[in-house]
């Protein structure tokens, strides 16, 4: 399971829009690279990223090989009530990486 990192504030006021930054370690092979033997490395990417909070989606990204290696996203969430913010990355071969962070709403 690839390594992932989340950066977000620990607490927020209700109704406040907070910035969330999420990154995952992944080569995002675009199919145009060669290995040491000169053979083409096939496309190997993460195809889907979802951030859910308070039972609904915040942001969903459909990724393509045109994104850089170790895809990084920054987006905004509207705080409503205390709970966990869940992140989920899905690889093209079905590998799922999850991460979550707690948000305290005051």
């Amino acid at each position, binding site marked *: 399971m690839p390594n992932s990192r989340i950066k977000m504030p620990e607490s927020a006021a209700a109704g406040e829009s907070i910035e969330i930054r999420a990154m995952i370690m992944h080569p995002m092979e675009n199919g145009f690279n060669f290995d040491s033997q000169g053979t083409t490395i096939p496309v190997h990417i993460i195809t889907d990223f979802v951030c859910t909070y308070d039972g609904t989606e915040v942001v969903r*990204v459909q*990724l393509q090989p045109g994104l850089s290696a170790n895809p*990084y996203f920054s*987006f905004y969430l509207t705080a409503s009530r205390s709970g966990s913010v869940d992140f989920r990355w899905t690889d093209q071969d079905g590998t799922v990486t999850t991460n979550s962070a707690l948000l305290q709403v005051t």
Partner: protein
Amino acid sequence: MRDRLSRRSAMLTIGGGVLLSMVALPGVAGDEDTAAAIRQLYGDRAPTAGRISLQLPTLAESGNSVSLTLAVDSPMTATDRVLRASVFANRNPRPLIATVLFGPKCGTPAFSTNIRLSGTQDVIAVAQMSDHSLWSAQVRVLVTVGACDALQLRY
């Protein structure tokens, strides 16, 4: 054993070099491919320029990672909001880079990521609002070493 370069071996080396430089170069999309990619996702209606702020560096030294910030001018209320936005690069081997779907918990329609660019080209963003209107923005980026060129140098 003769170790001086013969005419035959010189011709073979040059021929081989020419052949090697011809293989495995990724293709480049044209404006028609980009328009087709936009049509496939957003339908036949042409987007209107405006309501999107697309921030990219004017000059990118490496095409492997170019920072991109997309912000859409929208109040993000329940009835008037951004549904989705896509980023296209019109000279990449594959024009579509990513599609972002803004959910109900997203209060500010802004998004940042890092993209790959194969060379100097225009980056186009298209956004669809909840009233189904389409908006677009276009930014020219000068790329010194493209994401595909850098790898060709290694082999």
